[in-house]
């Protein structure tokens, strides 16, 4: 089930499911071409729809994954050793006067299954490692 993360010049990102790379390139290049011409992002809009004036965005990269990258951590279970390391580090980081907030500790553990990074810009927003890229504008 190939999924693709599309990273736009604006910093916006989306995930799309295509049958294959050819299908992915057809869609993303069609959108990118519209952006280069200053055309709208959505063609079939009804009268008065505010989306009618939204312009297409240039695309800077298209990353490929074997599955939806949001599936990372979906089971909300982690390896015991990973949980152990996280708790030990959190106890050191969060300890104040020999006490630790259980909510802050729990938040550190919960974040292990968060599929997102906290990196912005033109980097991937997912922790799952992509299989590769099928389109990348040179930096």
């Amino acid at each position: 089930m190939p999924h693709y993360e599309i990273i736009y010049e604006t910093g916006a990102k989306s995930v799309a499911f295509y049958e294959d790379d050819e299908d992915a390139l057809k869609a993303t290049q069609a959108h990118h071409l519209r952006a280069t011409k200053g055309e709208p992002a959505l063609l079939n809009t009804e009268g008065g729809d505010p989306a009618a004036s939204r312009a297409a965005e240039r695309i800077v990269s298209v990353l490929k994954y074997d599955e939806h990258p949001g599936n990372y951590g979906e089971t909300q279970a982690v390896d015991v050793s990973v949980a152990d390391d996280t708790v030990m580090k959190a106890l050191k980081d969060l300890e104040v006067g020999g006490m630790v907030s259980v909510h802050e500790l729990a938040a550190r553990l919960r974040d292990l299954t968060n599929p997102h990074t906290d990196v912005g810009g033109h980097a991937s927003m997912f922790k799952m490692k992509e299989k590769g890229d099928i389109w990348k504008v040179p930096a």
Partner: protein
Amino acid sequence: MAVLAFQQMSKLVTDYVMGNSGTVTPPASWTLGLSTTAVSTMARNSVWSATITGTNINEIGSTTAGGYARQTIAKSINQAGIDWGTSTFDNTTVGGGQTTTADQVTFGAFTSPVPSPNGANSWVLTDGSTINAGNPYFAGDTAATRTFALGDTEKVTPAIKAG
């Protein structure tokens, strides 16, 4: 624009927040889907389904994805990725409450053959990436029916009020 909070969202409040349940728990992250179903035909106990009947919620792209996939929203506030903003409070007794708005989410770019079914009438805050599956939590109507063509993208900025 009609909006609706579904049963699972209410259960998270009663069971997880109030009762510290270990079985009724929030997902690792939220996902946002597009539905052909208008909020006016949904109910608090609606479920995702490919079968269009009663109060079922039908997702676009179930027969032919056409570039459609659910988008993710992190369970965090004001981080670099797509997540929730700082919540605000409206003290109005009727209709007020605490509101949070997520970063704008992008769908597409759609390809050809286009998604089937096509024509989004609502967005649904849900969980998981499988089409027509998972728990619905909130829904809101789109500004207009959106029928997607090759190269289109769609933007949704979900705002949630707990009142």
